């Protein structure tokens, strides 16, 4: 009964490929997020969606495109993968788009680009 789930857990791919990471939450939340944890261990916000509407779009290469088919899902598509994209990607959700609303994180997807 996982609250926020991500698939796949591990993803190993070659440079130049296109890949997707899926995220689903069963908490009934309105807001979902994508974070990237790089080699320096910082968790950085990439995108946030509220009711399927894009709210936060940080300085992220446009090779990264989030897609929210409904409130419970926020997928991340990455085109033309580069070595520097190797990281752990976390999905999260919260009731509303307020930092006072607890964010619930998925287990992460470790992406390795060779």
């Amino acid at each position, binding site marked *: 009964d996982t609250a*926020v789930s991500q698939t796949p857990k591990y993803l190993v791919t070659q440079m130049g490929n296109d890949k997707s990471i899926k995220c689903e939450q069963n908490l009934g939340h309105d807001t979902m997020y994508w974070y990237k944890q790089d080699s*320096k*261990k*910082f*968790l*950085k*916000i990439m995108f*946030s969606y509220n009711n399927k509407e894009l*709210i*936060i779009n*940080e300085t992220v290469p446009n090779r990264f495109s989030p897609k929210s088919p409904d409130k419970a899902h926020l997928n991340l598509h990455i085109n033309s993968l580069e070595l520097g994209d190797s990281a752990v990607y*976390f999905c*999260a959700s919260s009731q509303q*788009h*307020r*930092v*006072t609303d*607890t*964010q*619930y*994180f*998925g*287990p*992460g997807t470790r992406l390795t680009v060779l």
Partner: protein
Amino acid sequence: DQQVKQNSPSLSVQEGRISILNCDYTNSMFDYFLWYKKYPAEGPTFLISISSIKDKNEDGRFTVFLNKSAKHLSLHIVPSQPGDSAVYFCAASDKYGNKLVFGAGTILRVKS
């Protein structure tokens, strides 16, 4: 630019003693602060938060202290337990509440 800094990459504490994790921030617009805990192969989980109108917030064994003038906060865990061994992330947000800015985390090891 690292707006939230956790200068101690790791901390080792004996079971039953106090663990003190520190966090410094540079952005004076930050007014809401949180601590998250992360076990290996899991996502971070919310632990405790504090608003800038307070200087202390307590939840069971966990207390967060905020020193606004020093732009410093700390998390105290008393008594420490082996199950507290995890990575602890400090995070902050400004009054617009738009996004969280995280530190790099501190690995806490509680030895039994």
